[in-house]
């Protein structure tokens, strides 16, 4: 039997829970059909999240999951340019005609969907982003040119969470776009996702006793993002997420992390998200979203 998992027509961090809810209903060994034929838009978060779902489905065993590609040519073209199908072809049996892709030079895709499995991959990501991002961060977002290095640092630390904690590989994508619907400003978005062990499992040996009955996905995210704790006893650990927070507070940015059944966010004034949401449909691993908005323009 094949279970249908519908990909939301507008697939981003907001609609991800709907997707996760459908994904969570699948039983082990059940073949999944990820239906994206009606997709009209997907954020980098949606794309890397879909790959994480494919990774998790593969781990459940059974036949390779199916994926119907978007039928809208523009959407299909964007997914291809963003490097989605290059990675998806290893995880899914894809149905639909996949277009050939053009080089990224003129694109707002600052970093196409890139696998992160080891420290070497993080080096490559940081090296590539510095070449492409500085002009966009300075010109389109109005960030101080010096902020590019901080951006690369934040990206490095977000990717390292996969290498250090996930127990499996994951993906990262970075894009700049005009966020008309929610902000009315240009933004740069970093999306990182994996289907690994998640924050709760990673921190359980060192943190669960401290939280007692409160221990769960939400508490684990709080320990990591707010308190800067790490599964390692080394006193210098936990610097990465703290550093990302410092960088984002300077540039009025947002971070949200979804892991298991919870999502935590540092919410800037321009956003109406909630700091913590628990009781979400379970989804493996961790999915990180970082948004840096254009500086100095009118609030929406």
């Amino acid at each position, binding site marked *: 039997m094949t279970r249908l998992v519908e990909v939301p027509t507008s697939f981003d961090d907001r609609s991800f829970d709907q997707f996760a809810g459908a994904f969570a209903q699948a039983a082990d060994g059940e073949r999944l059909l990820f239906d994206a034929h009606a997709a009209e838009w997907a954020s980098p978060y949606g794309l890397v999240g879909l790959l994480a779902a494919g990774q998790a489905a593969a781990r459940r065993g059974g036949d390779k999951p199916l994926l119907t590609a978007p039928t809208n040519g523009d959407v299909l073209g964007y997914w291809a340019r963003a490097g989605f199908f290059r990675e998806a072809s290893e995880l899914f049996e894809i149905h639909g005609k996949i277009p050939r892709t053009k080089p990224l030079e003129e694109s707002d895709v600052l970093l196409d969907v890139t696998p992160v499995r080891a*420290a070497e991959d*993080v*080096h490559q990501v*940081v*090296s590539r982003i510095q070449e492409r991002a500085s002009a966009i961060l300075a010109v389109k977002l109005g960030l101080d040119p010096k902020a590019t*290095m901080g951006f690369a*640092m934040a990206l490095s630390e977000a990717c390292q969470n996969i290498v250090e904690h996930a127990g499996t590989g994951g993906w990262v994508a970075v894009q700049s776009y005009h966020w008309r619907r929610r902000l009315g400003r240009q933004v740069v978005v970093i999306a990182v996702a994996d289907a690994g062990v998640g924050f709760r499992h990673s921190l359980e040996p060192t943190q669960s006793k401290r939280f007692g009955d409160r221990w769960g996905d939400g508490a684990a995210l709080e320990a990591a993002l707010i308190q800067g704790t790490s599964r390692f006893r080394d006193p*210098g650990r936990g*610097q990465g997420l703290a*550093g990302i927070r410092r960088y984002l507070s300077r540039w009025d940015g947002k971070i949200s992390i979804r892991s298991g059944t919870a999502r935590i966010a540092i919410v800037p004034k321009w956003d109406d998200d909630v700091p913590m949401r628990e009781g979400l449909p379970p989804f493996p691993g961790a999915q990180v979203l970082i948004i840096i908005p254009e500086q100095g323009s009118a609030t929406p």
Partner: protein
Amino acid sequence: MIQRIDVHEVLQRRVSGVYADLVTRPTGRAVREDIERTIAADAQARVTVIDFTRVGCVDYSCADEIVAKLLRDTRVILLLRGINDGHREAIEPVVRSAGLAVVVEGPDGALDVLGSPDAAAHLLDQLVAQQLAARTPGGGFFLTAA
């Protein structure tokens, strides 16, 4: 008395001949271990200059793995050279949160200290007491050791 280590050269030799960025824990560990061996090989050195001049990005993990751990464990005084604003952004909070301090030499030779205020004051006193640095009439510090 002063030992000089080019971090970019260590990175290229120990980790990658391609990348100029100090990112990830494994990279930081490999670079630090190389620096520790170099420091250990020169028993006469009292100050080790760690030159970041040709280094691109430094992330928080590498700042901790290299600078904070060297500060905790080495017998010599570390002096960072070639530090730009981006490097500083990673190194300062890491060193400060560890309750440590490190000396940074600016392009004009003036010394600055990054890190926890108490540790910074102690470090400057130590440099002067050991005649490794002297105060300028303007209240700044510069290196006197050769």
